């Protein structure tokens, strides 16, 4: 093992990898700080740039963007009361009142420190648990993988938004589009309509770009880009001192643990972790009445909660090959682009690469601190970048990125088609995240189902062959039960008029 660790270290130790972490973090923070641009969009747009890179460099770049975007979301949340990412929504509650009181610098400092500590703890948990789970997963055969993916597909409910049925429709649409192309078992065409470009199926990257970047651009053009002042608060006041940091440390550590636990469960994501961490901090505080009025501990708790998820969402990805959320689903695509399959075999066949990625991930926490301290003034101005200049640039980037996948204009057309579909989904209140997760997991699901049935000569009893199968079956049933119950409960409580997007034409 130590040989692999040393080899991993030597694989990592070059200037390109350090630049990838720094560059990824910088890009992520910039994108995260701009409301309207999402971390998923940033990772999707950066993906084509990683094709020519070494796998370690490429993956570390994407992880840097991911983590940077989660932290960056807090900047606009604090300065303009607009969370750059959904995970930063909770940071608004106390961050913006602090900025109004002239303590924006203090709030941003606390967000940075809490993010770094939580990220570090999350990374440690990733390193500790991923290998352990992967070694267990070595015993998996096709039926076990099939049932694991069944369980993973229940994460769709976590990203389904307000309507579970619409989330399921979106997911089924993703599954159906993933079947396009040549059938791998019998070699027959499926839904290609005689088009040779469709024989290899729809490429993942144009689908991703089309679904997550283009609808936002169309919607911005339809709604009109706001050209008024954003109400950006100046970066004033002193920074956080040691006493204030230590006062919030308990909430940061608690939030980190909450983030790790919720992040490791596929489909939950940063926003619920941030809110849970915040409410726990409020409950444990001697002055709960200060929360919501500009309490520094509130900023610390919410940022610790959402950043605590970052490393943990990589646990199911690296150990089982199952994405923990939408961004890790994109990172899964990056592994595939480099002919690497995350999961137990990755730990068997490419252990030095895994260790090199771990080193990069650990360093990313430190890089976040360095970049945050050095560039905080610049970051603070990013939230004010005019969208009417930014959006056309993003569109051109989408075209270059889609084309670069296979040097094919058909991929560009696919991205445009997916963009139109994504915009329709946006208008009809159908979430796009379940589509993407299903599109990625669909082929694995079908492949393992068919391999299992071929192994058992068509007998479904193969899905009951081991304790692992029964375990995942039980887990899936439990997950579905809890999700349906939660959905019904929410439905009863919800105001019936709030199911649709509030976009104004």
């Amino acid at each position, binding site marked *: 093992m130590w040989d692999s660790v040393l080899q991993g270290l030597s694989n990592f130790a070059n200037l390109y990898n350090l630049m990838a972490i720094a560059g990824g973090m910088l890009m992520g923070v910039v994108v995260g700080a701009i409301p309207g641009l999402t971390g998923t969009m940033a990772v999707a747009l950066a993906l084509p*740039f990683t*094709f*020519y890179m070494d796998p370690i460099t490429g993956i570390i770049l994407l992880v840097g963007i991911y983590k940077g975007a989660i932290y960056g979301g807090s900047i606009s949340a604090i300065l303009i009361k607009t969370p750059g990412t959904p995970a930063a929504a909770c940071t608004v509650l106390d961050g913006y009142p602090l900025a109004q009181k002239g303590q924006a610098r203090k709030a941003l400092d606390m967000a940075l420190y809490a993010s770094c500590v939580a990220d570090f703890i999350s990374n440690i948990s990733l390193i500790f648990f991923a290998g352990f789970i992967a070694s267990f997963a070595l015993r998996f055969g096709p039926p076990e993988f099939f049932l694991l993916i069944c369980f993973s597909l229940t994460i769709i409910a976590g990203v389904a938004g307000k*309507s579970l*049925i*619409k989330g*399921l*429709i979106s997911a*089924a*649409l993703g*599954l*159906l589009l993933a*079947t396009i192309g040549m059938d791998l*078992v*019998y070699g*027959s*065409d*499926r*839904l*290609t*309509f005689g088009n040779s470009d469709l024989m290899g199926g729809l490429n993942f990257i144009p689908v991703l770009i089309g679904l997550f970047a283009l609808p936002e651009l*169309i919607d911005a*053009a*339809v709604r009109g*880009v706001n050209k008024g002042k954003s109400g950006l608060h100046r970066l004033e006041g002193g920074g956080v001192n040691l006493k204030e940091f230590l006062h919030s440390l308990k909430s940061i550590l608690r939030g980190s643990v909450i983030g790790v636990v919720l992040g490791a469960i596929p489909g939950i994501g940063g926003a619920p972790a941030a809110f849970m961490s915040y409410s726990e901090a409020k409950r444990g505080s001697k002055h709960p009445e200060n929360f919501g009025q500009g309490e520094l501990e509130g900023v610390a708790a919410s940022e610790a909660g959402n950043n605590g998820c970052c490393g943990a969402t990589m646990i199911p990805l690296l150990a089982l090959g199952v994405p923990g959320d939408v961004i890790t689903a994109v990172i899964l695509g990056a592994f595939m682009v480099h002919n690497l399959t995350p999961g137990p075999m990755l730990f068997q066949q490419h252990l030095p690469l895994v260790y090199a990625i771990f080193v990069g991930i650990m360093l990313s926490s430190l890089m976040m601190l360095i970049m945050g301290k050095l560039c905080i003034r610049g970051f603070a101005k990013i939230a004010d970048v*005019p*969208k*009417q*200049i930014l*959006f*056309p*640039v993003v*569109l*051109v*980037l989408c*075209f*270059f990125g889609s*084309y670069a996948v296979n*040097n094919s*204009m058909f991929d*560009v*057309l696919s991205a*445009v088609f997916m*963009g139109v579909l994504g*915009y329709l989904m946006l*208008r*009809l*209140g159908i979430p796009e995240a379940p589509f993407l997760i299903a599109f990625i997991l669909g082929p694995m699901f*079908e492949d393992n*189902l068919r391999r299992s*049935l*071929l192994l058992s000569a*068509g007998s479904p009893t193969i899905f009951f062959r081991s304790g692992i199968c029964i375990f995942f079956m039980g887990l899936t049933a439990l997950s579905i039960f809890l999700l349906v119950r939660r959905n019904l409960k929410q439905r009863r409580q919800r105001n*019936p008029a*709030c*199911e*649709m*997007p*509030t976009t104004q*034409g």
Partner: protein
Amino acid sequence: MKSHYDNLYIGLGTALVFLLVSVWIIPNFILVPSSVQMTGVSPSFWPETISWSLVCLGILLAWSSLLQIRKAKAREARSGEAADTSAAIPKLSLRSVGMACLTIGAMLGYYFLVDWLGMLLSSMVALVGYTLIYGDWDFKISVPIAVMVPLVLYFFFVKVANIPMPPGPWGW
């Protein structure tokens, strides 16, 4: 109430579209070899399963919306207020529909322009066009961006990443 009517139409639309996919598109556009002996491993099994699931999900969405509408109507009858049957999906104004069509049309235009002018020049034209669509033309900012951004991207992909981009009539 408003959103339930929208969901009813979305559900019915989904059910109808995927009924068509299930009964016409899949049988005609997925070739099932005669050697297939098990239904579960047939090339059409999984797409059929998903498509029929979509039909069921559409019906479920429509049905649950109908139930909600009925409940809302009963509530409104009790309270004596008139039922609100307007749609909750914000109606797009003619200008907004026009903007959506223009933006999507411009994307298709950009796509066809790449074939004619190559990636570099067409991206410059697209940047100018989209800056106008987003409505903030400032010569001093927009022109340098329209020239520099495609140049940097083109240089990166062609020279650094060795990915050839579609050339224009002048070979670049």
